């Protein structure tokens, strides 16, 4: 019995063992497929945070296995720093997925502004997920200049720069980016990175005069001085400054404005651009366009080396700013009608919803300019102009003229699109003074399209030298064209202009004029001022350029203008790389005194510094340096804004005096500069 039982049990066990083994054999020969692990960025991409701050939303990924949420999977988060070092610090480098398949971290922006990515990799997944994030600076200023570069290989050539620089709340430069273009002469874009190291801005909070240093050496060590660009700045208020390059590598004038938006360039705009075309000749554009969802449509005029083509159809694409944290966007599809519709690549930096600084970034042509919003106005008629003042300046590589004046529109009416004007103006063309403020001596007609909002022209202009035809492009009547963040001032609007005659292609603005005190007492204020000047070819052939620029601060008191309030030294920076002041000696001069007494204004708000006294600049370069007397005329738009024009045989300029807001300056969050030293010697 026992033996039989034992045998049966053994057979059963053998059978079980056989069955088990064959089963195993069957299993190992047909393994199940591995699960497909996938990872996606669920939320948290596209955020922006100030440097040092955590992003508001978590960076969340979802991991699936064969399409089903996978729990317990390890996810590794890895920031990929941008070229300036911008990145974020994750709360953890790894996270494990929960039952719903999600894993998340927080991330804290590091100290460098800029866009970058954070990748997330799941164990077992072949692909990664990516987040695009951006670190922003608490305060960003957008700047642009254009002028004359001192090219070592090509001699003096037109150039333009546009960019944005970010600051912390203590006034330290955190970084930035810029586009620089001198049109086939060695320094075209791509974008240069402004690094925090080696960059700075110091400003005297009393005068508003300061120095901005931008280090772009990592991108291009050949611009500025070994990649260090120095600009003289003259703040008008805490959000606006005049600016000129101040390092001898180039000289130029422009604007430096607080940025109030970094995206959204939509709406209706008027614009002007000026520069050098693909053939090396000066050219300029003006027009109007609408930007709806990135589709740009409009009408524009071109003057290319004296050949004007008007009424061109503008069709282009605004590619937006993407992940850029400095409000840098691009426009494609803009073309040059005078060059077979050669495409022109444009980049813009957003100052605010209604102001764009624009630069042409092609390697063989270059331009700089601005676009200004038209606000909610949908139809611009003859009432755009009333009593206005204007200033027009030629491109520095063009024929060289400056003009300013007052115009008084007549026969205007709502719904009427054409009218006439009279007025008076001053005009200096290559040293030949063609008009000197003859009351009633300026006449002309103007009109706006009744179908293309704000697109117009001035025709039959007489009394302003060779200027007979201008393109006229209306802007938002509530927008300050020179100080876009300051909309409480008077003189808002009215239009941009483009010279359309065949002798030159200057650009300018027309702004409304307010009430003018007959004795000039309404100018008794502190002003920041500056000008872009053309002179008689410097110290050619040793220094063959012809431009100088200056910015500074001064005060009017009973028609007497002086720089500085406590006597010398004075806060004026004069950029003269072509030795127009000290023969044979180029220089970047600080603390240059300027003084003069103007005659009381005429009824048009025109002040003349001669014959009362000249507008005396100097001594330049020290007490023994020359003092140069200029014949300067002012046209007052109002106490807040005054145009200046120099009309000498050896020079001409167009500039502005802009009333300073002293309390605003004192509250500026910028590094305070040292008190002004004694008259500086040339830096070169």
């Amino acid at each position, binding site marked *: 019995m026992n033996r039989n039982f034992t045998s049966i049990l053994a057979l059963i066990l053998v059978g079980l063992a056989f069955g088990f083994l064959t089963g195993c054999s069957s299993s190992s020969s047909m393994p199940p497929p591995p699960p497909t692990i996938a990872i996606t960025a669920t939320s948290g991409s596209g955020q922006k945070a100030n440097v040092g701050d955590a992003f508001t939303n978590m960076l969340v990924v979802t991991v699936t296995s064969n399409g089903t949420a996978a729990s317990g999977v390890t996810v590794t988060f890895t920031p990929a720093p941008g070229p300036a070092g911008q990145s974020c610090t994750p709360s953890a480098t790894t996270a494990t997925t929960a039952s719903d398949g999600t894993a998340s971290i927080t991330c804290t922006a590091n100290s460098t502004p800029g866009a970058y990515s954070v990748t997330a990799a799941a164990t077992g997944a072949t692909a990664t997920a990516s987040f695009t994030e951006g670190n922003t600076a608490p305060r960003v200023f957008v700047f642009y200049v254009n002028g004359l570069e001192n090219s070592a290989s090509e*001699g003096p050539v037109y150039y333009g720069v546009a960019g944005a620089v970010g600051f912390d709340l203590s006034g330290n430069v955190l970084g930035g980016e810029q586009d620089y273009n001198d049109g086939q002469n060695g320094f075209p874009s791509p974008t240069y990175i402004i690094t925090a190291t080696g960059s700075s801005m110091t400003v005297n909070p009393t005068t508003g005069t300061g120095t901005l240093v931008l280090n772009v050496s990592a991108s291009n060590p050949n611009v500025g001085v070994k990649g260090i660009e120095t600009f003289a700045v003259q703040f008008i208020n805490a959000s606006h400054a005049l600016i000129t390059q101040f390092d001898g590598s180039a000289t130029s004038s422009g604007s430096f404005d607080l940025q109030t938006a970094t995206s959204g360039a939509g709406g209706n705009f008027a614009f002007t651009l000026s520069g050098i075309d693909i053939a090396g000749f000066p050219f300029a554009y003006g027009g109007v366009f609408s930007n709806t969802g990135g589709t740009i449509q409009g009408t524009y005029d071109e003057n290319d080396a*004296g*050949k004007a083509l008007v009424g061109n159809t503008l069709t282009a694409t605004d590619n937006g700013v993407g992940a850029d944290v400095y409000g840098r966007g691009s426009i494609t599809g803009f073309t040059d009608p005078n060059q077979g519709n050669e495409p022109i690549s444009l980049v813009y930096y957003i100052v605010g919803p209604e102001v764009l600084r624009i630069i042409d970034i092609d390697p063989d042509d270059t331009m700089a300019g601005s676009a200004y919003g038209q606000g909610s106005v949908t139809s611009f008629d003859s009432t755009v102009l009333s009593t206005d003042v204007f200033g027009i300046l030629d491109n520095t590589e063009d024929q060289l003229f400056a003009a300013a004046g007052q115009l008084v529109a007549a026969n205007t009416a709502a719904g009427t699109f054409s009218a006439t004007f009279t007025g008076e103006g001053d005009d200096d063309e290559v040293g*030949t003074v063609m008009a000197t403020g003859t009351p009633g001596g300026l006449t002309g007609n103007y009109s706006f399209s009744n179908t293309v909002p704000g697109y117009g022209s001035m025709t039959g202009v007489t009394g302003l030298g060779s200027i007979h035809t201008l393109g006229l492009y209306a802007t938002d009547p509530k927008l300050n064209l020179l100080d876009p963040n300051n909309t409480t001032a008077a003189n808002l609007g009215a239009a941009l202009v483009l010279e359309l005659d065949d002798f030159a292609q200057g650009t300018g603005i027309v702004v409304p004029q307010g009430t003018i005190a007959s004795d000039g007492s309404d100018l008794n204020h502190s002003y920041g001022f500056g000008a872009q000047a053309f002179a008689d070819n410097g110290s*050619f052939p040793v220094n063959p350029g012809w431009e100088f620029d200056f910015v500074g601060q001064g005060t009017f008191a009973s028609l007497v203008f002086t720089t500085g309030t406590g006597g010398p030294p004075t806060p004026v920076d004069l950029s003269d790389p072509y030795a127009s002041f000290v023969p044979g000696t180029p220089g970047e001069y600080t603390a240059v005194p300027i003084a003069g007494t103007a005659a009381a204004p005429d009824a048009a708000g025109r002040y003349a510094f001669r014959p009362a006294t000249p507008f005396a600049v100097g001594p330049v370069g020290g007490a023994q340096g020359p003092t140069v007397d200029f014949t300067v005329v002012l046209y007052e738009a109002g106490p807040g804004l005054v145009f200046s024009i120099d009309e000498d045989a050896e020079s001409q300029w167009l500039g502005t005096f802009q009333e300073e807001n002293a309390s605003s300056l004192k509250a500026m969050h910028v590094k305070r500069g040292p008190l002004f030293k004694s008259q500086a010697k040339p830096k070169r």
Partner: protein
Amino acid sequence: MRHSRFISSTPLIAGLLTGLLLAILVVPLNAEDSDSRYDVSKEVTLSGTVSSVLRKPAPGMIWGSHLIVETVSGRLDASLGRFGLEGKGALSVTPGQQIELTGIMKTVRGKEVFVVRSVKANGITYALRNEHGIEVSPQARERAAEKGVTL
């Protein structure tokens, strides 16, 4: 289109006659400044001998470099512009040299000046301004040369 424009040379005799006629007709009494427009329809071609090369203007002259040229009708102030003697491919002439000038006569600051659009010297034509009087920069010269076009 601008680049394909050729500046045709004028026979010497025509230039001399034109210069003589110009000397008779274009010098007005109490001359007022012309505007800055370059009226190509008034263009003439003159021949003469260079007496001076002024790399910088003398007092009272318009900006840029100048040639003082002796023509059959007298001495001529020929304006070459800012770029006339500057950069690669610039005009190179010396006193005593025979040249042919194409341009227009203008009154600037009360003085007669011949605004030169092109100079023919040593068999080479140098373009200094375009048909609108816009000065040809060294960069424009260089780009035209690279593309094989004549300004």
